């Protein structure tokens, strides 16, 4: 497939090999009014691939809320843009690079990061932060996972981490957060979702609309090679089989040094005032950038391939148009002023060549040394591709009974050992060994890097004066296990948790971006999951005031017919009006009061009275259940978005007032993990070692549920005794229950009581040992 001479005659079989169905092929012929040549077929096949056309997801994506008073640019451009005040905007977006990262972990991850960074600076924004949301198969053997499989997963993880680190570190953008999770379903199909954030002046935002007939089209950046041909169509838009390793040549190769030059040169070129439009060449390369810019501008574009800088000789028009070589951009500039732009790129030592011009008539016309290689109406190619209302079918309900659910331990059981095991599990254990490989502090804006706060917090320097007023907070979340059990509720949790993380850092959630990782859209059950997840996202984003401004859909995440868990990953962006008010998770002073905030129980002391079986069912989906008993079933915790909203308001108010010393939300592993992490962070934030003494409010639930349950809308704050009154009053005004559950103590004691007995009794040092080093020990095993 990689080499396809132009002379090849297009047959229905060749169209099918290109992934076009018979109907799609018929539509191609209808649009052209004739048979396509092989180059044209290639162009249609990439533009109409699932990855580029969203043909299976479009009808559902329409339901997502995309508007808000702070949204400057919603989905459809290179990135979403929101207003962050004082004439500044933030551009941000998340994208997947899953399949390439399995085939070639290092390069797959680098080009994933590189692609999303280009999306940001294409808008005229300077990238200031990257987050990575990663999912791998189990990295330890046991529970049906062989040592061979675990070792392979460790190698994939290692390659991906090195790739993410290499690209961001060299480019000079801090990688400040994200998550890493492990489930068996990701063994053959890891997820690599990269989110980038940039800042620009509101008046300096650039779009990808080719305007002005006769304006020159300029190609800049790396030379075009044969790498990545059909990356979008054959790698990203088909499931894996045993032959997938042969797709290695379809993986692109990243060069962060080149991208850094491209960044600086593009931002400088934009300052000349001559740039009309700009688009990066990512998926489907030259094809996609020319077609989309022309289509959005209501114009045509004509280019001559002989002028395109090429890395190797003898490339056919087919190969040049479909190459996914990285670090390339296409610009439309004002006619007559192209030299100004060419000079900037020359200064940075980059290729920049006028390869064509904007034309009337709406045609994408590709010439090769004067010979016509392709001629396609741009708008139908970009916008009138196939749209499918794929069949949807809810899979039959899981057959499970109370006997399959988690059986709680007897009352008064000492749970310390189980707790230590939970802290050492890959999902909960410290990710420091991974995040230390990322440059987290370059650009000197990182107020809270990985693990310091529930969200990554980046201060905003005024581009002119460098003065700092506000900060931005970003968090990603997506619990695939919960989405597998209930895609609608799981998706709602993803939004709620990401927003809660942002609010726990003190910032007000303002907008979201989503990366929707699913199996094959040709399976009705997968489409049901997708549709349910979209509904969940819609409800949650509406309720929490975080419109979706962009993102991407990644289908075909399956191998040998088995789908991954449906995994919508949500990135939420928030704004902190006063950059000096960042809330971090670490306890600070002995004697501080530990307060549990709970949005879902407006009346202090109110109890959740539900039958024990409901508790068992819910708890069976928890991290504790999975880690301690290997049970993954039941239902995710019920979600109460009103409660989430109240809690978030409360946290934002407390941060603004400066009345709490730390804040950390309750999530994976429940209250016990939240308390322990707040103790661990105290030491790493340079404070003296402190411990915690807590007594959880008695409920009609077993101790394990109280300690490790993962119901949302809760956070733990620590408060100086003198501020306690003010904090309780703020909570009351926000309709949030606030209960004093313990004290920060000197030394390293760590004790949790429940109903009069110590259910966890250990030392911070012991727990820290397990939590801090277990991932490193596992991964160093090779």
């Amino acid at each position: 497939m990689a080499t396809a001479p132009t002379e090849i005659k297009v047959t229905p079989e060749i169209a099918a090999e290109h992934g076009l169905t018979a109907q799609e092929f018929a539509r191609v012929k209808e649009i052209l009014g004739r048979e396509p040549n092989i180059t044209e077929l290639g162009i249609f096949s990439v533009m109409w691939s699932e990855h580029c056309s969203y043909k299976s997801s479009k009808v559902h994506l329409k339901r997502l809320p995309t508007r808000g008073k702070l949204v400057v640019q919603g989905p459809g451009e290179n990135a979403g843009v929101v207003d962050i005040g004082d004439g500044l905007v933030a551009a941000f977006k998340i994208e997947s690079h899953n399949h390439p990262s399995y085939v070639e972990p290092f390069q797959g991850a680098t080009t994933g990061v590189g692609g999303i960074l280009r999306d940001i600076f294409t808008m005229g924004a300077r990238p200031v932060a990257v987050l990575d949301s990663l999912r791998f198969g189990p990295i330890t053997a046991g529970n049906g996972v062989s040592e061979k499989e675990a070792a392979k997963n460790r190698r994939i993880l290692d390659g991906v981490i090195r790739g993410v680190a290499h690209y961001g570190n060299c480019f000079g953008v801090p990688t400040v957060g994200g998550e890493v999770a492990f489930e068996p379903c990701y063994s053959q199909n890891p997820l690599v979702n990269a989110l980038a954030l940039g800042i620009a002046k509101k008046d300096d935002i650039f779009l990808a609309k080719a305007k002005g007939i006769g304006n020159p089209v300029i190609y800049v950046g790396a030379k075009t090679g044969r790498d990545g041909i059909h990356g979008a169509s054959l790698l990203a838009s088909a499931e894996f089989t045993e032959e997938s390793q042969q797709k290695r040549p379809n993986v692109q190769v990243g060069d962060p040094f080149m991208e850094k030059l491209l960044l600086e040169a593009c931002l400088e070129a934009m300052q000349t005032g001559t740039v009309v439009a700009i688009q990066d060449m990512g998926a489907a390369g030259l094809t996609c950038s020319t077609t989309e810019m022309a289509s959005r501008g209501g114009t045509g574009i004509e280019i001559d391939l002989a002028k395109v800088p090429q890395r190797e000789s003898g490339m056919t028009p087919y190969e040049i148009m479909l190459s996914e070589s990285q670090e390339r951009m296409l610009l439309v500039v004002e006619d007559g002023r192209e030299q100004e732009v060419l000079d900037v790129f020359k200064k940075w030592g980059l290729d920049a060549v006028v390869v064509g011009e904007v034309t009337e008539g709406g045609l994408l016309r590709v010439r090769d040394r004067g010979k016509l290689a392709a001629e396609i109406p741009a708008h139908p190619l970009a916008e009138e591709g196939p749209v499918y209302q794929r069949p949807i079918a809810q899979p039959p309900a899981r057959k499970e009974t109370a006997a399959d659910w988690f059986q709680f331990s007897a009352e008064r059981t000492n749970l310390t050992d189980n707790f230590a095991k939970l802290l050492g599990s890959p999902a909960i254990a410290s990710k420091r060994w991974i995040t230390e490989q990322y440059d987290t502090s370059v650009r000197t804006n990182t107020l809270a890097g990985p693990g310091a706060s529930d969200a990554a917090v980046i201060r905003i320097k005024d581009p002119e004066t460098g003065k700092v007023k506000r900060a931005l907070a970003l968090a990603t979340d997506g619990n695939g296990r919960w989405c597998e059990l209930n895609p609608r509720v799981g998706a709602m949790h993803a939004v709620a948790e990401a927003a809660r993380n942002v609010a726990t850092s003190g910032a007000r959630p303002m907008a979201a971006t989503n990366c929707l990782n699913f199996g094959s859209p040709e399976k009705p059950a997968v489409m049901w999951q997708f549709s349910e997840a979209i509904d969940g996202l819609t409800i949650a984003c509406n309720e929490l005031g975080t419109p979706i401004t962009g993102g991407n859909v990644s289908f075909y995440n399956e191998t040998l017919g088995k789908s991954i868990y449906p995994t919508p990953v949500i990135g939420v962006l928030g704004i902190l009006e006063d950059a000096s008010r960042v809330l971090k998770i670490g306890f600070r002073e002995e004697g501080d009061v530990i307060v549990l905030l709970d949005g879902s129980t407006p009346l202090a002391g109110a109890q959740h009275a539900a039958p024990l079986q409901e508790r068992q069912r819910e708890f069976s989906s928890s991290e504790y259940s999975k880690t301690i008993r290997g049970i993954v079933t039941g239902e995710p915790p019920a979600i109460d978005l009103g409660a989430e909203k109240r809690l978030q308001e409360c946290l934002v108010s407390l941060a603004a007032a400066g009345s709490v010393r730390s804040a950390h939300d309750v999530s994976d592993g429940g209250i016990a993990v939240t308390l322990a992490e707040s103790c661990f962070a105290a030491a790493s934030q340079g404070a003296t070692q402190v411990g915690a003494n807590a007594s959880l409010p008695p409920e009609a639930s077993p101790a394990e549920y109280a300690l490790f349950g993962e119901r949302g809308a809760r956070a733990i704050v620590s408060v100086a005794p003198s501020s306690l009154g003010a904090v309780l009053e703020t909570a009351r005004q926000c309709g949030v229950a606030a209960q004093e559950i313990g004290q920060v103590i000197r030394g390293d004691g760590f004790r949790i009581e429940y109903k009069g007995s110590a259910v966890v009794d250990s030392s911070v040092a012991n727990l820290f040992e397990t939590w801090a080093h277990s991932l490193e020990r596992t991964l160093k095993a090779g």
Partner: protein
Amino acid sequence: MKFGVVVFPGSNCDHDAFYAISNILKKPVEFIWHQSQDLANCDAIILPGGFAYGDYLRTGAIARFSPVMKSVSKFAKSGGMVLGVCNGFQILLEAGLLPGAMTRNSGLRFICRHVHVRVEQTDTAFTNAAAKGQVLRIPIAHSDGNYTCDEAALGELETNRQVIFRYTTSDGTEDAAGNPNGSIANIAGICNRERNVAGLMPHPERAVESALDSADGLVIFRSMVEALVGAAKATA
């Protein structure tokens, strides 16, 4: 008094150094393009961190041949103040302005975290405002920070008191636990014999505000200002 921050293609801490000097130290500073041989009458030159020229071949190996380095060498040899941070340190080594060489971190991975370095000498343009033995908490961010040199060179470094920063634990103990990258003799930063050129792997420009977790790096820039003020007085 004017600082100059050199911009190589691939420099990525240039803005941070610039910001530390202009916004925190509030001193005049300008960027100097790698193609330029004109140091714009700057009194002190900073070679910032990053991946100059992609760090292909070897860190700093290509940058040393850039036009600006001709002028920087001349400036340094005539007593001008030059500080290399991270990649800038690597470039100074490659350019022969400082002795020794850099190899991969002993763990073979990029490491970014706050480390502790002890100020070993205070009679340099970069440490005169610090106290001898003072422990600074400053971040590192590199994969090639494992400083090495032969025994004779190490002996000379020690004899001439050219080791100005050493990695230690938080209490100032010089041991393996405090050494993040395997550097010989826990060396984090050195100066030349004339004490006007220095390089260090940690990033002082990232530790100039308590909001960024540490302001310990400021003392290095303050020292440079002190030295420049002193030099100006001496010639006045």
